[in-house]
């Protein structure tokens, strides 16, 4: 006998499996973006700063290999977050009316989002491994996972409070600004500016760059900052979505809307 949480999670996964194009795109989009960007980048020298203050000279090609996986993961995870939550808003309230607990529905949706992020993470790291070998795979993989979690949750928050178009624009704009430019060591003097620390991508990208070039872990503060972002966004998504799918006495009497 399945619990209601398990049943809701299984339904969520079945819904994903019935969309083969989605699964194909979750593989193709990060694979194409990472492969194309690394393959076309020239091996020109570039100075960058690592966590802990060490400066090293690398090549643009190697650096693109080090950071492109994070950007691709953030783009795809963010969009998955937006639309997994949009889907939850349209269907889950009916299940709550039918007797499911709002918290169960939210956890089931987060499990689906987590599986999407895990797939994108696996593809991105596998493709990156073809072109670039980080100094510490553990640190690099952990940072990439944190980017996926943070941007997946940020997308989920946007999806829960905004309409589809606004949420899509906002999450793509956020990834482009944060990971694409502000945190990107390919630009400027190779070290993020003073205000970069205020953005969600700062911590995980610094951990990722550290893991890419150093076998030692010098990014404790950045890791804590990343975990704080992930925890805050996770709590935020849970609260917002739980409220959104919860049924009040008046909404229970009204027909469930589209």
């Amino acid at each position: 006998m399945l619990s209601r949480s398990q049943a809701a999670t299984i339904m969520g996964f079945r819904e994903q499996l019935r969309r083969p194009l989605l699964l194909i795109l979750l593989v193709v989009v990060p694979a194409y973006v990472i492969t194309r960007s690394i393959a076309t980048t020239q091996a020109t020298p570039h100075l960058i700063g690592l966590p802990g203050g060490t400066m090293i000279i690398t090549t643009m090609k190697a650096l693109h290999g080090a950071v492109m996986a994070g950007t691709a993961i953030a783009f795809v995870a963010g969009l998955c977050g937006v639309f997994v939550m949009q889907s939850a808003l349209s269907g889950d309230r009916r299940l709550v009316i039918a007797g499911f607990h709002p918290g169960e529905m939210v956890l089931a949706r987060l499990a689906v989002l987590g599986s999407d992020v895990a797939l994108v993470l696996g593809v991105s790291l596998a493709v990156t491994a073809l072109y670039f070998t980080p100094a510490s795979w553990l640190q690099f993989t952990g940072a990439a996972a944190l980017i996926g979690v943070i941007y997946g949750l940020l997308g989920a928050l946007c999806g829960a409070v905004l309409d589809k178009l606004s949420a899509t624009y906002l999450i793509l704009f956020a990834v482009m600004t944060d990971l694409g430019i502000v945190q990107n060591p390919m630009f400027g003097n190779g070290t993020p500016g003073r205000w970069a620390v205020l953005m969600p991508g700062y911590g995980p990208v610094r951990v990722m760059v550290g893991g890419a070039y150093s076998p030692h872990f010098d990014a404790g503060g950045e890791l804590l900052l990343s975990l704080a972002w992930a925890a805050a966004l996770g709590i935020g998504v849970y609260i917002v979505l739980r409220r959104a799918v919860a049924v009040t006495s008046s909404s229970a009497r009204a027909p469930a809307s589209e």
Partner: protein
Amino acid sequence: MSALAFVSGSFVREHLRTPVTMVMLAAIPVFFVLIFASVLGQFAGALGGTLAGGAASAISAGWAAAFLCGSLAFFQVSSSRGADRRLASAGMGAGRVALARITAAVALGVAVSATAYLTLWARSGIAHPAHAAAAILAFAFIYIGIGALIGAFVSGALEGSLLVVLVFSVDVFSGPAMTSTGGLLAYGPTRDAAKLLIAAGTGQGSPGGEWAAVTATVAAALAAAFGAFWLAARSRT
């Protein structure tokens, strides 16, 4: 005719009713032209391309228009299918609904392009203002076609958004002066519009062949968009 104008206006208002969408439609072109363009030369240099200065600023304006219009047209088709079918069945007809939709998409594309154009003009001036305006509009209209086509064949919002992002990425990486690699991947949908825009940004004219190619691409894109809107609005019975 007034009914068509009224419905087109309603379709425009439908997308502008959310303050965040309004802010994004204004902020993203400004971001592309002011911020993205400043690092684009360095990015193109890393890829082996030669894009820099006025050309980088100009092409950023085109990409801003493309980025916004692709998603906008996709959601116009995918999110409004039910309502459009009802409108068509209520007497407006699928052709007129499609015409109203494409009028709204073009109006929003013109507004977005105008924002990008004015930002470009304020930032660095434009050596060939008329050429640049035409090229930015071409970017917008080509992506209206791409977004609407994706919307006609892909019903899932996540799948469609990922496809728009994928097409945009392929297009950006294959843009002229972006990389040193050629081959089949060098032929993106906005390649000729990008050539016009780069030439306009650096004060050079463009050959008639490029204008003809851009005109043909825009006409094909708008025809495809009309077809996609019509397909979405026609009754299944």
